[in-house]
């Protein structure tokens, strides 16, 4: 019984961190699907979102709801601005140049924030508080419940947006074939900006959930989180939205269960080993579309 309740807690732990990975992975996956860019700066957008929450709650004492909205709005704007300023001019350049630009933006955000706010972590006071739930001897914290519920809602919303709305259709069309979509009268710039806006808004939400679980914002918090989420996106099949969600949960669960087994030093190794095995067996990821190569 004790074992079962521990296992249950560990699964919840995995779901909670997996949710955050999944939200971030969605951003990676959408951007990759549309302009084939591994957007390394995506993790740092979460960092910016977290600093916005910190600024508005700890410094200005805004209501949590206001802070949350502010974080989402700032992240979204930042994502769109980065696309316009740094990525749009490079649309016809070699893809590697685009990648290096993304890395450069990531460095810039990290070092810039460190310069402005200092290297130390900023503590965000608990702003999402509520009762935790006890199931037998296992405890589920309020933040875990919020994180998982919000993530599921966001995913449902996103799926609806991509499948049912006109902009969503445009997004899918562009990712299918950019040239053809343009010929059919789809405005490329709007669609790409919209994609970045969506991805970054999700990152904004992720930053809020991140803070509710871990309570600290630091300039380099985005890099490892981003890398793991990126692995999650690839694992699930990059470009595929359900894949990104699945990938996020798989990574979160794997980390939790490996740690639970007392092998936490090998955690990163296991995550990457899963990635390698999946890629070798199914090279486009768990739910990716099979690639056909044109001659």
């Amino acid at each position, binding site marked *: 019984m*004790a074992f079962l309740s*521990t296992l249950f*807690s*560990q699964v919840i*732990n*995995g779901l*909670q*961190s997996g949710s955050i990975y999944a939200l971030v992975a969605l951003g990676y996956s959408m951007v990759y699907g549309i302009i084939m860019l591994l957007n390394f700066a995506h993790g740092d957008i979460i960092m910016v979102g977290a600093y916005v929450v910190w600024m508005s709650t700890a410094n200005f004492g805004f209501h949590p709801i206001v802070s949350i909205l502010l974080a989402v709005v700032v992240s979204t704007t930042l994502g769109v601005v980065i696309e316009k300023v740094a990525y749009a001019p490079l649309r016809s350049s070699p893809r590697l140049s685009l990648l290096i630009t993304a890395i450069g933006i990531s460095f810039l955000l990290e*070092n810039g924030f*460190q310069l402005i706010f*200092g*290297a*130390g*972590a900023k*503590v965000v006071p*608990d702003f999402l508080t509520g009762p*935790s739930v006890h199931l037998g001897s296992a*405890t589920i*914290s309020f*933040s875990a419940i919020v994180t998982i519920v919000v993530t599921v809602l966001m995913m449902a919303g996103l799926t609806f947006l991509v499948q049912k709305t006109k902009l969503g259709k445009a997004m899918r069309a562009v990712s299918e074939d950019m040239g053809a979509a343009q010929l059919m009268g789809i405005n490329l710039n709007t669609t790409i900006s919209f994609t970045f806006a969506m991805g970054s808004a999700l990152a904004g939400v992720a930053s809020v959930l*991140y803070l509710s*679980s*871990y*309570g*600290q914002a*630091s300039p*380099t*918090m985005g*890099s*490892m989180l981003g890398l793991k989420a990126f692995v999650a996106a690839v694992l699930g099949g990059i470009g595929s939205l359900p894949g990104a969600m699945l990938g996020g949960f798989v990574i979160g669960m794997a*980390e*939790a*269960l490996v*740690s*639970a087994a*007392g092998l*936490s*030093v090998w*955690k*990163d190794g296991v995550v990457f080993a899963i990635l390698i095995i999946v890629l070798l067996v199914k090279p486009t990821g768990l739910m990716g579309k099979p690639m056909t190569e044109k001659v």
Partner: protein
Amino acid sequence: MKKFVSVALAATMALSLVACGGSASSAASSAANSTASSAASTASGEGGTIKVGVLANTSGDYAIYGNAVKNGVMLYINEINGKGGINGKQIEVFDYDDKGDPTEAVTAFNRLVDDGVTAVIGSVLTGATIAVADESYAIGMPQITASATAAGVTVLDPEDPESEVRTNVFRSCFIDPFQGEKMAEYASQELGAKTAAVIFETGNDYSEGLKNAFVDKCKELGIEVVSEEAYTKGDVDFKAQMTTITSKNPDVVFCPNYYQDDGNIVKQARAAGYTGTFMGGDGWGGVAGYASAEELEGSVYCSGYAAGTDDVKTFETAYKDAYGEDVPNMFAPLGYDAAMLMCNALSAADDQGLETGSDDYKAAVIDAMKSTDGLKGVTGTYKFDQYNNPIKSAAIMKLEGGKEVFSEMF
């Protein structure tokens, strides 16, 4: 044919000259810059200067520790310069960022050598410090680190008790094994613990060093270590580990990490339902802001720096006046003490009337440092053992009502 060969050769040589020349001129400009900046703070220089190098990682992942050390060091040096320096000689500081990277630290150290410094304070992270210590030992440059706690900083081979000591390298902080053993003894004697768990950062030698010493000592004292959990740098999610630890319900949990992680660990452990006592090393200093008062209540850690006691009030006020913020962590006072130890040794050497920057002068600084006895700093009273590690007693700090309170000397 010969003409082309010679043209090409000349061009090749020219380029290599340009490469070197280019960096030379940039060096000159930056040296000028740092001279200018230190000249601003040391306006009343007369009778020459003593050049001291400061290495700290003021950018990169662990910059918060580097910045604190640098602030502490600069605080003391500015104080002493304000009082007229050493024998009328102002201390001229050359400070470089090493990003915590050993490669950068070695180049920065050689830059300092070029700048003609007499002594070096730094570096901050262990890897960088050891790389620098290798270089400084080879040329007999006095060096003191405020924060590198691994045993291998001052001795060549920590595994071997007969090992060669880097006679020129000193430190103002505890070494790893000392703290781990102290806390194991404290757990056994004062807390009556029978079972313990540890959670440490794998890949971080401070954390692993403390953990190993703690676990070994526990075995000796008959405390059963029920769980050894680890995490990696940059992790913020400790729920899985804490759930495991909670399920084994040990009397104490030892977490020998830095305060940001420790705060998070305690928070998540309480969320997972753990109710026992947390213990830590001096990395805990400053933890109070990182978890709530209830979560931290009753936790203990050992520290050289008894924050809040009268001894350190003066330091804290001075720090706040100088930088407009509270002392962020133990690294600032340790940096202050490192600078104090170094300046003390410099002044002893200077009294002998040797030429600043000469090898004899450096040797005299090292001798003076070695014979330091009873110098009172912010973090304790200093005397060095045969391995150039400070002998000072540990203060036990307790978390009470969200404050870090001095409990006892142990």
